[in-house]
């Protein structure tokens, strides 16, 4: 879900732009250490591939079609670091050339889709991608990547004071779930087709990776995301604080603290995962 300019409240987009800058710096430095600029053409071309892939219609019966987002697919083939860089590049081109997503909103969009989305997609694969549950890991990862990004975007909008009725909220979440499950199905089918062509295209999560750490990471990301959503919608405790304060600052603050938590969780676990891989 690409958030356009004008939707988010100033504290929200400003904080997320500020958070995105070091996040982008870390990811890029990590990608650069692994790749040096020789990998730029590969990442660029695979970004173009994802763009093209997003346009392909997947018939899902009853006359509707679904589309791939691609963050998880990139993570399972190029690795999470490269996938984040590619998704960020895609978002930048979409915002600048196609006016799909805002420019000030690039920070939030990158955090939602290129950072948290990719990480949430990769963690199940990191945990279970090497064993019997590989197919489920791929499916779950792809589903989570879209679901988490969408929920975060929704939360950011709510924090910005965009009022959405409870029923509309339910409908939105249901739609997100459907598109997330679709992403899971499409990604799994494409990965299987890829393995038939050239098994080396798809990564094998390294042996000896820390299960406990990965599990904690995944739980943290999920809890924080859900937490942010509830914090942004919960009426009681926060409203009381708001009524007693002259401005909306506290609600915004609480929600932003939650988003910052999500970002911090990704940051830490992202570094741990790469350190493990290069060890």
């Amino acid at each position, binding site marked *: 879900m690409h958030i356009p300019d004008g939707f988010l409240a100033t504290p929200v987009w400003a904080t997320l732009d500020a958070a995105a800058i070091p996040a982008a710096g870390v990811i890029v430095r990590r990608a650069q250490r692994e790749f040096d600029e020789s990998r*730029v053409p590969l990442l660029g*071309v695979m970004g*173009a591939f994802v763009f*093209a892939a997003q346009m392909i219609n997947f018939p*899902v019966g009853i006359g509707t079609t679904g589309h791939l987002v691609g963050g998880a697919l990139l993570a399972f083939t190029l690795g999470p670091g490269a996938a984040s860089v590619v998704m960020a590049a*895609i978002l930048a081109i979409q915002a600048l050339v196609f006016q799909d997503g805002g420019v000030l909103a690039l920070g939030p969009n990158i955090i939602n889709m290129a950072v948290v989305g990719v990480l949430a997609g990769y963690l199940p694969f990191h945990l279970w991608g090497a064993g019997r549950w590989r197919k489920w890991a791929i499916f779950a990862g792809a589903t989570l990547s879209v679901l988490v990004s969408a929920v975060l975007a929704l939360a950011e909008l709510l924090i910005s004071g965009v009022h959405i009725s409870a029923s509309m909220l339910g409908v939105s979440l249901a739609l997100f779930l459907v598109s997330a499950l679709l992403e899971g199905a*499409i990604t799994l*089918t494409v990965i299987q087709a890829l393995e038939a*062509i050239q098994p080396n295209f798809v990564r094998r999560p390294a042996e000896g990776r820390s299960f406990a750490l990965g599990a904690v990471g995944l739980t943290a990301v999920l809890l924080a995301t859900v937490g942010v959503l509830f914090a942004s919608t919960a009426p009681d405790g926060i409203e009381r604080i708001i009524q007693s304060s002259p401005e909306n600052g506290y609600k915004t603050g609480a929600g932003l603290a939650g988003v910052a938590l999500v970002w911090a969780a990704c940051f830490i676990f992202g570094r741990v995962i790469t350190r493990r891989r290069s060890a």
Partner: protein
Amino acid sequence: MHHVVLERWSRGNTFIHQRDPRAKIAALIVFLVVVATAHGELTLLAAALFVFLSIIAVWARLPLFGVMARAGVVLPFTLVFAAIAWRPALIPKTYLSAMAVLIVVATTPLPLLMRGMESLGAPRFLLMVAQFLYRYLFVIVEEGQHMVSAARSRGGSFRAAAGALAVLFARSYGRAEEIHRAMLARGFPGYFRTLGALRFRAADGCFAVIASAVPVLLRMTIG
């Protein structure tokens, strides 16, 4: 296609086209922040900002209706959202922001814009990836659409689409390897070098200051 039009517009030669990309980026950011932070009674401010953007578009010899129409691509999503959230103020904000971005991109060739962003501190690796992405975007999109129509003419199904995607992945990967070989064949040392530094002139400074000041002043007096 849109990108062809956009590239044609960006190769113009007006005063606006010739300005340093950093000046345009700075003015754009100021404009976007002014719009994003505006609240309350928006109609008059929105109209004034629209006139400001239109003047720049005309000065840059861009077709005004073309620009307005292209910026309108954000409207469908925004209208739906404005209805759901009962926030009509969303519409002018989003539209003006899109129009401003479009004008900058329509007066600056993308490689030059990226050089400007790099000079302002954006991560080089990310910009180079975006540059290669854009270079091969339409090549691969076309390839993808050929494959899809081929698959569809044989009775499209979910599995067929996934298979087509996998083949497109493999072909793209192979293309990237060819590109790498072509780079090595011409002595690629592991990093890219650029053709020229940007030169910020007095005219660029004046433009940046004035183009930033106008929206701010409008906001302070009207908004």
